[in-house]
């Protein structure tokens, strides 16, 4: 009881940090809409452009590459969660995580629009987009400034992904329920404001 009284403020702020980069996909989405991102065909096409494992890429399963990307960005999330004092290495990890997820999301959106009718591909798209915006926001909120080149890269990804989100909302490939309530406000604003004009997944 005494410990809880003393540590409650720290625990509360740690939990709110965790929540801000929390679950990427909605726990309430229709189970048929979102599948397994790690085995998505679009991840198979894109992951080794984002995660550099050298010559091992030929022998490695794409789902293992996806796991490496998630594990690498988990370190940046955990640092934010425990309120680690910001240092240049943890800032670098956050910026790098934002860039990697942005690259993956951009690569996924560059595939044929109908690819995102597949539940696994859709789950990968939702996760990559959510994580990009979460890490971008975390990097922006940090005390030290992001190098200019990297800031521009993140801004470019942000613009491209917001356009892609608008298009896919109109195509019916994405709905608000696909994203968790912890998704970035920019994503939820687009999901709310844009309307479906046609359903490209309907055959």
């Amino acid at each position: 009881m005494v410990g809880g009284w003393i540590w409650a403020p720290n625990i509360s702020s740690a939990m709110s940090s965790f929540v801000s980069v929390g679950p990427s996909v909605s726990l309430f989405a229709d189970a048929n809409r979102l599948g397994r991102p790690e085995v998505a065909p679009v991840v198979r096409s894109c992951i080794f452009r984002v995660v550099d494992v050298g010559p091992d890429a030929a022998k490695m399963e794409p789902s293992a590459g996806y796991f490496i990307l998630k594990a690498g960005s988990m370190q940046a999330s955990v640092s934010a969660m425990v309120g680690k004092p910001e240092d240049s290495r943890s800032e670098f990890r956050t910026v790098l995580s934002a860039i990697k997820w942005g690259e993956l999301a951009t690569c996924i959106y560059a595939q044929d629009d109908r690819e995102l009718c597949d539940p696994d591909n859709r789950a990968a798209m939702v996760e990559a987009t959510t994580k990009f915006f979460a890490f971008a926001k975390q990097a922006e909120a940090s005390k030290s400034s992001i190098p200019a080149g990297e800031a521009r890269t993140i801004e470019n990804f942000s613009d491209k992904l917001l356009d892609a989100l608008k298009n896919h909302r109109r195509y019916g490939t994405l709905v608000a329920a696909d994203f968790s309530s912890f998704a970035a406000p920019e994503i939820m604003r687009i999901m709310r404001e844009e309307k479906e004009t046609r359903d490209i997944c309907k055959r």
Partner: protein
Amino acid sequence: MNFLKRAAFVLGGIFLGINLINYFVLGNSGDYLPGGQRMGEWKEAKIREACYPALEAPERDSLLPKLTSNEHGVDWRDLNRAKEITAALNCYLVTHSNAICERNNRAYIVDYINRYFAKFDEMIDTAKRYGESEMSTVRNLWDSPRNRVINAALMQDTSNGRLIKADFGWSVPAAMKPMLDRYKGATDNCPRA
């Protein structure tokens, strides 16, 4: 609620909680197999250590499960687990074919057989979402030369009475039920000390 009922409720809850954690979280399903003359303590099984070398580099064994196509929905963790579990059971049943005659080893091997079939069932259930082609990929994965030798060893051990239905208790794998029923009553042909 009087004091005794409350105490019983709390103790019952603690007992149930500990066992649920032991089974589902720690994965010690071997603790819930039947005991008796045939089945010993799985934690004392010497076959586990004896087979550690077989698990050191499963990627070097070309007879273990492998995927034949790049177009699949199998997660790398499931693929690795399929290889490990096959390598291990091959060692327990084929490489050391008499290990099952020792009761501690038998307890461990029976538990491992349950895990082997549970993994296969889990992967097939996941594959069902993707259709017949994916199910065929998973069946082919689990039809490697080592898997076929394991199936033959299971058939032989069942026909020789080294494995009987009672060894599995309430958790008989569905794939083993027909052969256990077929060879019901077979006498155990383990060498007598």
